[in-house]
């Protein structure tokens, strides 16, 4: 992942976390909708994933929650 996406990763991750806390989102439910188990979801949030589409998908799911 290049530097520009590093910054974007931090931005999108923070926005996702904000929505999760603000809307008090059930992580089990979010994991299922994202098609992954909880630990994978945490991994995706905590470590930059080279497949950036997963963040765009997560952000979309959260915006529509």
């Amino acid at each position: 992942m290049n530097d520009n996406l590093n910054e974007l990763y931090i931005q999108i991750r923070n926005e996702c976390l904000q929505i999760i806390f603000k809307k008090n989102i059930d992580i089990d439910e979010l994991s299922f909708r994202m098609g992954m188990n909880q630990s994978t979801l945490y991994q995706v949030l905590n470590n930059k994933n080279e497949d950036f589409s997963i963040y765009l998908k997560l952000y979309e799911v959260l915006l529509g929650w």
Partner: protein
Amino acid sequence: MSGKEYYYTLFKEYIEKQVKSTQEQLKGLEYNIRIRKIYKELQSKNSNKFIEYYGVLSQISEYIKDNLDVIDFLVKNNITSAPQMREAIENILADKDLLQLISFTESKELLEGKIQKLTSILDGTCDFEILKNALLDSDLNDECVIGILDAEAEKTVKPEKKKLPSLDNNNAINKEVMSKYNETIKKINKLVTRYYHLIQNKPSNLIEMYRKTLMGTNMKEINEVYQEKDVLVCLHILHLIDLKTEGEEVLNIKPVDYSLLEINIEELESAYEDATLIVEKYEKEQQEMVPQESTMYFLLDENNKLLFNLDSFSEDERRSISSILSDLEMGLFDYERNKSNHTIVKQSIRKDLNVFVNRKRNVAVSYIRINSEELEGSKVLVLSIEDIKKIFATSQSILRSNSKLVDDSISKVKENTEEYNALQASIKDEIDSSFQREEVTHHE
């Protein structure tokens, strides 16, 4: 009236309404600007200023009028030093209605610019970008928006005489480049129009993230690494739109630099090819998600045994499993309406296979859909039945450790041999009897 004429009529009516409301907004803003100027003068707290603007200020509210009357009375009676004077002045300056009027953030220039843009749409002199933005901001339905975008896109590929570049001695070559450009744009417009709804329905902050992603990476990396197919389609469509805009900019600068245009055509062609491949994968996934009656198969190990153990589930869980399998078999699982009970395994080990998961209560079934033109009807290959919290890890583990087994099973399903079908029938009997056994136990 043709469909497109009707769309244009609706759009025209919408724009006319927008012009009218913006003009009214502007009128309101001019009033607010005047009040703000007056307010600045009032801040000197000179009682004569309040009397001077009595007419305008008294119309804002009864409360302001009452206070103005106090000031007027005190001025006329030459008792301007009375504490009531200061109080009345402070009351007016702190009045909420008045403060609201002067706390606007709109700009007169912006509104005038907006009216100018809207008017240019009505008289047909606007740029495509202005028209496109107005359309996307409109309350018109998708069909209407796409219809107009389509018609406008057609216009851009029809060379208008007045817009044609002046042709010199190289006119034959330039004509050829233009012809190629028009040809490329035509097919790109078709693709963009077809998938534009995927972008249009997304929130603007999400689209902003898409654009930033495009800026931060290249399409090669996107194609190789990104797995979310709908996200990929959106990125490709946005990329095509950006490239198209670059081409339009080349054409807008006279005399046209045809060598630059040729580079743009090459980029567009390459982007179109990439986008077409992605769109095919996206369509395949969409097709797999169409609910349909399916023949059920189960993934078996080398000893023809199931990879999961039904005995480990409780009675309630078995009922849920039976219900999921039955819905899947009968094509009753509506992916759209019940999408909260259906998902696709993300970050899959096998990028070439979509693994779907359907759930009921705390259990879930993961499966692959097998559709091909040679096959009669739809087939489903069940990979695993598991507790909902374990289903993703188990499915990924199967794809990782038993990848060949999965491929072999898909081949066997496609081959449709009597032997394999008989084996699967016996497995299904085994599963059914397991459910029935529970029911009998339950009834006893």
